[in-house]
């Protein structure tokens, strides 16, 4: 049961490390929110449970970043987007595996995980990212 895990950012990224996108679902208003937090931002309820999110969604908007902080600069240019997953949850993330000129608002993307490159100092979080769907 989700109740055994705290509704924290740290736990969200532990799940990412297991290849799962997990959100908190409010038992009172039904809202799903990411990142999870100790009380529902809509109705303040503490009746929360974990729910696994759909790993597919539509691209709502995107950009291609050319100037970035040093940590990301060697990746430039890279695509960043906001997608709306099929369960309505929105997430920002880097989009890989697509030519930048082929990016379109409304295109279908799916979530994938990079659990190999974990930094040695805080925060020791893995990353999720988006890519074009592999199946039809």
């Amino acid at each position, binding site marked *: 049961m989700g109740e055994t895990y705290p509704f924290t950012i740290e736990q969200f990224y532990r799940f990412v490390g297991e290849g799962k996108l997990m959100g908190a679902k409010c038992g009172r208003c039904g809202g799903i929110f990411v*990142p999870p937090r100790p009380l529902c931002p809509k109705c303040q309820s503490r009746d929360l449970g974990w729910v696994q999110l759909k790993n597919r969604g539509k691209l709502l908007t995107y950009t291609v970043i050319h100037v970035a*902080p040093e940590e990301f600069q060697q990746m430039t240019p890279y695509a960043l987007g906001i997608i709306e997953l099929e369960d309505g949850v929105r997430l920002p993330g880097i989009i890989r595996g697509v030519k930048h000129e082929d990016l379109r608002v409304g295109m279908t993307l799916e979530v994938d995980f990079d659990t190999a490159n974990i930094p040695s100092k805080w925060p020791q979080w893995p990353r999720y990212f988006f890519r074009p769907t592999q199946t039809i």
Partner: protein
Amino acid sequence: MRGKPLAAIVSAGLSKFGRRDGFSGRELFAEAALEAFERCPNLDPKKDIGALIIGNMSESFEHQCHSAPIMSDWAGLLPKPAVRVEVACASSGAAIRYGIFAILSGLYDTVMVGGFEKMTHRTTFEATEYLAMASDFPLEQWNGATFPGLFALMATAHMHEYGTTEEQMALVAVKNHHNGALNPKAHLQREVTVEQVLGSRVIAKPLKLFDCSLISDGASCAILTRPEIARKYTDTPVYIIGSGHGTDAIGLYERDSLTSLESIRRAAKEAYEMAALGPEDIDVAEVHDCFTIAEIIAYEDLGFCKPGEGGKFIESGAPTLDGDLPVNTSGGLKAKGHPVGATGVAQLYEIYLQLTGQADRRQVDGCEVGLTQNLGGSGATCIVHIYRRG
């Protein structure tokens, strides 16, 4: 409270904005403070000013927290209480609001509000990183979001939803550079063309270098008093008659709209209602053009035009210096510069000049009512103030 003065501005000061090699934030603040004191010879700063409220975004730039007592010291105001407020790029907009609260509380007759940021001694990478700290760390920064990147996400969405074009965004830069060329305190005092904007290098598609505001050094301040005593200090007070503050989720992705900022709408509604005025009553405005798309969205969310018509609004010429509603006569963040913590009070400074007829070659004839809109981060904070000539 409706339509009544909340506080009076009896003086204001602004350092030269730009690349100020060899000057730290405190020295720039002293420069701004000195101008405000010189403008107001009837005021004895040490005796009359009760407290200092200062906006500053990031201690990373100068490796310096706890800056409020330093600013008080460098302005010669010790031992008056001083506090720093921080809501990213809206920090000194918030300082104005909390200065008003200090006066309305009855504790102080007169306070100084201000802001500063020293940025240009850092590399572009460092500045980009420090500024990005005003976005959500766990999901946005961790996934490579930058400030140009977040506003580029809004620009792409606005273009997709409303057909807004890169040329329309470029017109915002052209207008603001034109105004900045008339402002001796602006960071960049030169005109640009639509072709130059469109041809400048991409920072975060579709935003190019000339769609972005400047990394600048600068400081700003203003002296606020109870309205009833303003004429002790000046014959030309400017009254603050509306103050609004909107707050939203830190992450752009968490908000319902990607093309409109609810924090601007909430702040504007509160300020308009307090002032008993509407957007049609505004004669001159300074809005938060951290990126050209941000000015287009501000037109819409402040009610200067309908949702989605910000691109047409700039095309119509209405917000130019000769238009019906001149916007960013100072040159805006785009050309005057954007030392982030100084920006909110720097916007007030321009409106103060306009409403007291001191804006020189940028003067909007006969203006009575002004507005400032100061945004924090990608829009989790917005502060709006409305001003009336005394």
